[in-house]
């Protein structure tokens, strides 16, 4: 017998021996089965490294494209380099082109030094005190914010009730003055007048009121024609100069189809969007109109009609300026065009925005006031309790802060002792708890 045959026979015998006399675990049986059936593996004809390149794509290409398919036969061999290959090549090229460490940098430094000849008074700094700092987390943001200050449509908010009442009165008078003069209900974005704001308000408060006609309509009654002229002159939109028309015109063209659709659908009076609440157009228009106003106003001083009114809205007697009568409270705001014009002006004057759902519920000026006057902030319960008789009872203690462990110790009188003991050991008494606790400074 040949050696190989002996080996095979021995192998078979060993298998047989194991199967008869000894127990073999299922794992060993599986290994033996695989070893014996290795030659007949169904996946043998496939290469170990499976790649799409080995697959015959020609048949598929012919099925898709027909008898003469376009492109290379094997995309992986004949096609263009893959993205990863391209990146690899690029990195290699960049590495070869890069200067070695220090070479490029020193050249740039030398150029900089050569260019700066004025070295008088130059003293190299030893510390970074008083040196300008560039970079960091918020440096870039601060640079942008300092040069791009935003001025919104609505100015500083009015807080007091009297100022808000005066603002509503002013808005109603201005809108009704335009309406009675048969002018479009559009105002200048930044109205100005030839007199100080305080005087203008006082004039309006004294000489402007509302009356009901026989038909039941509300009519504005002004004390003099001069007041009417002053109002209309201040709030009418001023014509822009030639420079601004080209820039504003592009913006207007974009908004024209929207305006036409609105006018057709609702049959409202045309609202000039230059003074409207539209966001992006507004800032540019306002800047141009502001520049224009300073030139077009004939008087020497132009007083803006929207100011922060805190110190100015006070009479000579020290009392806040208020309308002469309460006729402004019953002015109806059912006409949509009038309503929106009044609301726009009021929002600009008070700085308080009225949300859209609330606009529908406003039918007269009294309701408008309720939406603008802010309710007082609710007090804390501790403040409420302290103001009551409960605080006067001898066995009741009310505290505004959370009653903690240190407060407990302080009540008993132990805190002093604890603090002294901690200081004896060189430890600082801890104030507060958790991550934010800070040592108490002695």
């Amino acid at each position, binding site marked *: 017998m040949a050696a190989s045959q002996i080996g095979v026979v021995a192998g078979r015998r060993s298998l047989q021996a194991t199967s008869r006399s000894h127990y073999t675990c299922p794992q060993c049986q599986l290994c033996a089965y695989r070893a014996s059936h290795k030659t007949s593996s169904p996946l043998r004809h496939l290469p170990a490294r499976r790649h799409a390149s080995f697959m015959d794509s020609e048949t598929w290409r012919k099925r898709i494209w027909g008898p003469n398919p376009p492109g290379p036969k094997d995309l992986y061999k004949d096609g263009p380099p893959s993205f990863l290959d391209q990146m690899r090549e690029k990195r290699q090229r960049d590495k070869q082109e890069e200067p070695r460490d220090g070479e490029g940098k020193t050249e740039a430094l030398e150029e900089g030094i050569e260019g700066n000849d004025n070295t008088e008074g130059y003293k190299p700094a030893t510390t970074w005190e008083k040196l300008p700092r560039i970079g960091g987390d918020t440096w870039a943001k601060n640079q942008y914010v300092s040069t791009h200050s935003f001025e919104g449509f609505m100015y500083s908010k009015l807080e007091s009730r009297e100022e808000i009442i005066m603002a509503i009165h002013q808005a109603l008078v201005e809108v009704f003055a335009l309406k009675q003069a048969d002018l479009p209900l559009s105002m200048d974005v930044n109205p100005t007048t030839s007199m100080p704001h305080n005087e203008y308000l006082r004039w309006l408060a004294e000489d402007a009121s509302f009356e009901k006609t026989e038909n039941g309509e509300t009519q504005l009654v002004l004390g003099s024609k001069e007041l009417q002229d002053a109002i209309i002159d201040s709030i009418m939109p001023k014509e822009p100069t030639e420079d601004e028309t080209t820039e504003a015109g592009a913006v207007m063209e974009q908004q024209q189809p929207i305006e036409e659709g609105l006018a057709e659908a609702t049959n409202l009076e045309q609202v000039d969007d230059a003074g409207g609440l539209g966001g992006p157009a507004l800032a540019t228009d306002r800047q141009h109109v502001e520049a224009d106003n300073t030139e077009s106003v004939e008087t020497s001083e132009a007083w803006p009609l929207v100011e922060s009114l805190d110190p100015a809205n006070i009479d000579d007697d020290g009392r806040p300026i208020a309308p002469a009568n309460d006729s402004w409270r019953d002015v109806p705001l059912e006409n949509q065009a009038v309503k929106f014009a009044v609301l726009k002006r009021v929002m600009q004057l008070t700085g308080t925005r009225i949300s859209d759902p609330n606009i529908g519920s406003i039918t007269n000026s009294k309701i408008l006031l309720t939406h603008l006057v802010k309710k007082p902030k609710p007090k*804390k*319960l*501790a403040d*409420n*309790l302290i103001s*009551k*008789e*409960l605080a006067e*009872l*001898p*066995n*009741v*203690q*009310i*505290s*505004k*802060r*959370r*009653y903690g462990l240190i407060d407990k110790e302080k009540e008993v009188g132990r805190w002093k002792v604890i603090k002294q003991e901690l200081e004896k050991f060189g430890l600082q008494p801890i104030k507060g708890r958790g991550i934010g606790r800070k040592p108490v400074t002695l």
Partner: protein
Amino acid sequence: MPVKALRTTSTARNGLGAFILQCKRLDFHYCDHWGSSRGMNSFLTSPLLPHLSLTNPSIHISISPRPSHHPIIRASYINGREKVICVRNLQKEQILKKVELLRDAGGEKVRRVKGGRVVDSFGGIGREGVRGVWSPYHGEGRGVDWGRGKVER
């Protein structure tokens, strides 16, 4: 022979000579913001609390906020123990009942009474007395003079 009476002394108990209220302090904690503290807030602003403090002058009542937590009532007793009841989402009348529960309790741990023993007034008869057990909370009671006139319990 005449029957001799046994000399005994009365067992010392709270209430035998004088009654000392076990609850010495009540801490009320509330939150200004959480909705579960609405009942507690209304209890603190109602006249129930001032009446409670007037009728229990020996109890030190402390009111302090405990933000972002449910409202609790913490009672401290003479034996040094404390009892806490969370009164979240309770109405002010329900809170008053909890306060009275804490006030009337002692500092001892609440234990299960085994054996079904009967508390008898007459020291060992083994059955409930007809007149019931004495308690300091019933009857006429005693008033306290705070300088504003006697406040009756």
